[in-house]
């Protein structure tokens, strides 16, 4: 197996550039090549332009500016010889076999032995791609199909040919898994592989049925979205995002390559409106809009939706689907609802699930691969077979039969059973052979969901749980809504610390929610503030301070393993851990100022401590305070774990795991490594600038206020923050400030702000609209 260190990407289009950026994120040296454009000043213009664009793009393809430096730009005429250094050569050029093969021939001439070549094709069969190429190429060639955007979509479809060396595939798989953080799904060499084969069938059914039934697209998205566990963009919103212009190409390619009897042909019915829209420049969000558009005529922004019958835009409205409301979480009730909407839901999902069932053994070996591909490639909460388990395989089979629809074999195999089951704590899936097989995790993957299936929690309440994850390590999990921090979490955390001290060696704080924690439960806090329950609020602040301090000073190592957002109180708990093993996609920050508050669960104190001990700053008490002030007053959120290190939300010694599935195992290993000779950190004592520093920070904010960067209320909040970070009135260079004083300052200023109408208005806006109020 080759250890991949150097990656070459051929083709600097959206996908090629995105893949290059992500390989750079993974720490590889990357060569990005494209053709020499006619008349350009630089022969590398395409690659250089792509990198420059990506540095400005949002969501950012790069995890940090440093990553961009790993990319060397070049062109396919002058720099082919450089491919000799590449361990993995990724082709991402136009979907034309002749062009691809011509390029492969050039690559084959220069690449080194043992290097791997892959194509990012989404439609072409592997067999076609290696036609006429030498044996050495065929042995080192495979398809590695990324999803857009490559940094964020976790699915990588891998297709190998009969001649592909197993070490070649293993090298790519290992790199993709460990370094790119992808879940690799092995696919058979069939058209469009798994996710797009099924995903396009699903979206095409949804569009055609909606069009032919003359439904409103808002209603369609409400039916096809949330109730099915599909992102709320549904289908029309999704196609706007992907680009309408791709639809005819993708459909044509599938129609060409799929066998005659494939059900896709029956739903590949023309939708003339889509052609008209594309011709008018309505190619989706990248164009003038798509099925939805923002009409800016008349100075105001009005969201409009297309009427599928008239083909005209009209103001968008809120979806109103009684079938969805009445069926609640009961998917079967929705699919059998006696209404045009219920009939539509069935017309799309019945055939889609049947299609999925018919593809087992055709596109992949088992249902697990298909479910995984749809979850990670299309962001479905549940894969098709999990959905079938929800409605019942028997029910689906009966309904299909009643419609005169052929019933796929595997549905018959599943008769009276479910596709997944838990046996003795082990998740199992139903194979084509009619027997259950364990769902295997790759080596080194430890999932809390598996732990939870097999055991009872050590401790639990309504908002959190403590689990035994083996080898003397416990895992503390948040289970509250959105993993927001509330009194119950604090309460259980206090108990967990005592329990771990007695029965375990180390503690990991981790959960498998979309977000680690979005911070304190603001709804609870605002309600308490509205009824003037000040002492309750103050004791909540104190409880948090004490619990977090107990976590930091506990006589065992504590490792946080965050993924997704770790904001406010969710950031502060991370700051109090001995070490952090963060998922690369961790978005961490102290955002309290955005809602008119200051961090008061020790967040100010810990950040001051970090910057004064670890920050490479000029001497004196001011630079650390000023840096922390800038970070917190602007509610800065690091956009990746790498960026979090720059902000010292993570310390230099904290670890980053690229693959989310490996996060818990990595965190556990880190915690165990710290057990031997562990001593908890001592009390914080920090040299701070005192009143003069407070004045200086205040003046900085006044400056922002004058230039319009800060609002009047920003100034008040920043003033309170400055009062905390400067260490209070008694602080000066000769009198370091202890953590008790700092925590009291945090508390005092938090309580002062929480009583102010400006703060309450901010919190309310955040809760009601999800948007910060700039008052």
């Amino acid at each position, binding site marked *: 197996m080759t250890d991949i260190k150097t990656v070459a990407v051929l083709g600097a289009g959206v996908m090629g550039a995105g893949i290059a950026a992500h390989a750079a994120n993974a720490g590889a040296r990357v060569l990005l090549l494209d053709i020499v454009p006619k008349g350009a000043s630089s022969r590398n213009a395409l690659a250089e332009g792509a990198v420059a664009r990506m540095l400005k793009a949002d969501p950012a393809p790069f995890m940090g500016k440093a990553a961009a430096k790993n990319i060397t730009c070049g062109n396919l005429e002058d720099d082919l010889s450089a491919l000799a250094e590449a361990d993995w050569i990724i082709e991402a050029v136009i979907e034309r076999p002749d062009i691809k093969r011509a390029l492969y021939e050039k690559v084959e001439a220069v690449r080194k032995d043992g290097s791997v070549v892959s194509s990012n094709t989404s439609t072409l069969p592997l067999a076609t791609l290696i036609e006429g190429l030498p044996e050495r190429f065929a042995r080192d060639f495979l398809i590695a199909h990324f999803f857009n955007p490559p940094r964020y979509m976790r699915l990588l479809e891998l297709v190998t040919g009969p001649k592909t060396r197993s070490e070649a595939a293993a090298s790519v798989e290992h790199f993709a898994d460990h370094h790119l953080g992808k879940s690799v799904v092995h696919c058979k060499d069939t058209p469009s592989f798994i996710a797009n084969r099924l995903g396009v069938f699903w979206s095409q059914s949804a569009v055609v049925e909606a069009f032919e039934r003359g439904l409103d697209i808002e209603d369609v998205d409400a039916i096809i979205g949330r109730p099915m566990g599909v992102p709320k963009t549904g289908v029309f919103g999704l196609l706007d995002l992907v680009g309408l212009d791709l639809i005819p190409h993708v459909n044509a390619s599938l129609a060409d390559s799929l066998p005659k009897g494939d059900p896709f042909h029956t739903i590949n019915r023309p939708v003339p409106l889509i052609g008209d829209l594309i011709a008018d420049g309505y190619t989706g969000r990248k164009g003038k809009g798509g099925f939805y558009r923002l009409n800016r005529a008349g100075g105001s922004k009005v969201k409009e939706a297309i009427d599928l019958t008239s083909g005209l835009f009209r103001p968008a409205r809120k979806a109103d689907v009684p079938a969805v409301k009445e069926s609640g979480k009961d998917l079967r009730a929705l699919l059998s609802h006696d209404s045009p909407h219920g009939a539509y839901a069935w017309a799309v999902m019945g055939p889609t699930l049947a299609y999925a069932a018919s593809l087992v053994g055709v596109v992949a070996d088992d249902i697990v691969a298909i479910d995984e591909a749809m979850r990670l490639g299309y962001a479905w909460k549940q894969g098709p077979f999990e959905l079938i388990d929800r409605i019942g395989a028997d029910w689906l089979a009966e309904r299909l039969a009643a419609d005169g629809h052929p019933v796929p074999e595997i549905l018959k195999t599943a008769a009276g059973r479910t596709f997944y089951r838990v046996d003795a704590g082990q998740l199992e899936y139903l194979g084509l052979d009619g027997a259950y097989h364990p769902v295997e995790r790759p080596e080194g993957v430890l999932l809390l969901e598996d732990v939870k299936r097999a055991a009872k929690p050590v401790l639990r309440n309504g908002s959190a749980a403590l689990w035994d994850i083996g080898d003397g390590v416990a895992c503390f999990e948040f289970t509250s809504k959105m993993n927001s921090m509330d009194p119950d979490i604090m309460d259980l955390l206090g108990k967990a610390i005592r329990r771990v001290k007695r029965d375990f060696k180390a503690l990991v704080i981790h959960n498998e929610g979309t977000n680690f924690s979005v911070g304190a439960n603001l*709804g609870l806090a*605002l*309600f*308490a*503030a*509205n*009824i*003037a*329950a*000040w002492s*309750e609020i103050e004791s909540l602040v104190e409880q948090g301070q004490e619990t977090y301090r107990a976590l930091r000073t506990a006589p065992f190592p504590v490792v946080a393993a965050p993924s997704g957002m770790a904001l406010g109180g969710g950031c502060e708990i991370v700051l109090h851990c001995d070490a952090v093993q963060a998922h690369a996609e961790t978005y961490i920050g102290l955002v309290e100022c955005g809602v008119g508050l200051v961090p008061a669960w020790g967040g100010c104190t810990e950040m001051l401590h970090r910057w004064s001990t670890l920050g490479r700053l000029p001497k004196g008490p001011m630079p650390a305070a000023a840096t922390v002030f800038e970070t917190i007053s602007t509610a800065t959120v690091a956009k990746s774990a790498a960026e979090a290190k720059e902000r010292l939300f993570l310390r230099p010694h904290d670890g980053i795991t690229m693959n989310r599935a490996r996060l818990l195992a990595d965190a556990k290993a880190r915690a165990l490594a710290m057990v031997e000779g562990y001593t908890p950190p001592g009390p914080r004592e920090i040299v701070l600038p005192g009143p003069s520093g407070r004045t200086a920070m205040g003046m900085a904010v006044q400056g922002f206020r004058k230039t319009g960067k800060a609002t009047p209320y920003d100034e008040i909040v920043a003033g309170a923050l400055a009062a905390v970070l400067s260490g209070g009135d008694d602080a000066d260079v000769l009198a370091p400030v202890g953590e008790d004083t700092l925590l009291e300052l945090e508390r005092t200023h938090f309580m002062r702000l929480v009583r102010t109408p400006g703060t*309450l208005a901010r*919190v*309310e806006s955040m*809760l*009601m609209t999800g948007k910060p109020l700039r008052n």
Partner: protein
Amino acid sequence: MASYTAPLRDMRFVLYELMEGDRLTDLPGYEEFTRDLIDPILEEAGKIAAEVLHPLNRSGDEEGCTLENGVVRTPTGFPEAYALFREGGWTALSCDPDYGGQGAPHMVDTLISEMICSANLSFGMYPGLSHGAYAALRHHGTHELKDTFLPKLVDGTWSGTMCLTEPQCGTDLGLLRTKADPQDDGSYRLTGTKIFISAGEHDLTENIVHLVLARLPDAPKGIKGISLFVVPKYVPDDNGGVGARNGVQCASIEHKMGIKASSTCVLNFDDATGWLVGAPHKGMRAMFTMMNAARLAVGVQGLGLAEASYQGAVEYARERVQGRALTGAKAPDKAADPILVHPDVRRMLLTQRATVEGCRALAAWVARALDEQTRHPDPVQRQEAEDFVALMTPIVKALLTDMGFETTNHGVQVFGGHGYIREHGMEQYVRDARIAQIYEGTNGIQALDLVGRKLPANAGRSLRFFFHPVSAYIEAKMEVDALAPFVMPLAKAFTRLQQATAQVARTGMANPDEAGAAASDYLRLFGLTALAYLWTRMAEVALPHVGTDDPDGFYAAKVATARFFMERMLPQSGALFSQVMAGGESMMAFDDAAF
């Protein structure tokens, strides 16, 4: 018969000393409403209430309304009294000057409404309903409709009604059936039956303007398919006068427990001509905009009757001699002591008094906010006032009408057997008070509105405008020794209310039945705490005057009543708190079949 005198001294205390009534003139549009203008208005209102309306109260109750050939006759003296009332400009008092009104503040209007309700609630129903119709048209009517109807409603030559209820739909207006068919000329033809229509037909005015909820042919089902229409008894002619008789007939009048001089009609609409008010299908929204004011007005009915009953009871307790004081004769020269000496009679009288004066202050507080909501130049202040009014409306409606019923019952009890017979009019107050707990949204619905709508809205934002000022007040006055007998119990009740609020919000979120089960007790706890706050502030205002400039003992009595409230009424908050915290399990788990 018990007499009535308008409690002008206490009203001025509430208006000027407690609620900064002198600063009403700060609000745009109220510049002229100085003491010099307000005081004579209050005095005049007191006169007409005591001298014109109150003498007709008992006779009106005895005689009731009669229906003959579709025509309702009000009791003897009512048409003449109405003419005087109208000519005195009282129908126009709080109306828009653009339509001939006098533009008086809600605070002033609330005090005058109280007097009218004390003197003769049945009479007050007629102009009261007109005002509801006026408000609906003014907010939602077209220019043409406003020009046609408003001046007549304001000067009182025409009266109004609100036609909501139908035989099959009371609280749940989603079941409403009356239909409205659009006509080519832009008008509508309405057909259906409305019941319980107060002032639906009578002989006081030359025309009656019905505001009717009905469904358009294309209306969605349920509450979202209701539109509002104006349907006059006589279609106005081209000169704005009374024209052709419209297709609306009074089929019968109800025979009721109380407010017998108020005609409560079954109205049949048969292809009656009407016009749309507001947008199609938005009838409920139109109703909501005036609901707060209407519900506050019903609360004031409870207050008015409680005041009248208290006056009657005090007079009787001074005159009636029976038995001797427990500690020895107080009036040895008489055959017996006046019953005023007996502790239990004093308990009842002080309960009445503390209730009436506290509720008057509460009504004024909310009316002041209503003035700010409509008139304040700062939109933030307007919004805050609106939130406060929205929060307090169900409390004022339910608390004041419940207390109105309880207080009038105390009045009967003080009279003993003489309270139970009709002669003294004390039992009439009870009967009249009873309806106010029911109409304009039953008090159970008010409690649900409070816990189900007002509490959770915007994570409890409207609560802020009650809890913050009260909390700040308690913090500020905690150390004032003289106020300790008031602030301490207030603080205790306030903490209970905070805890109960958090509990209702928390359990109600998980299980709406829990909020529903707590609702009525919670509303009462809220109301008592609000009264405790106002009693503390009244004591604070009165204390400096006691023994210095208090020739008639008004301030001393105020402080003493405040003490009574704190010691003998507010402790109920403890029981209410326990009831709320106990949850609804004992009710909801009860087997339906066992009832």
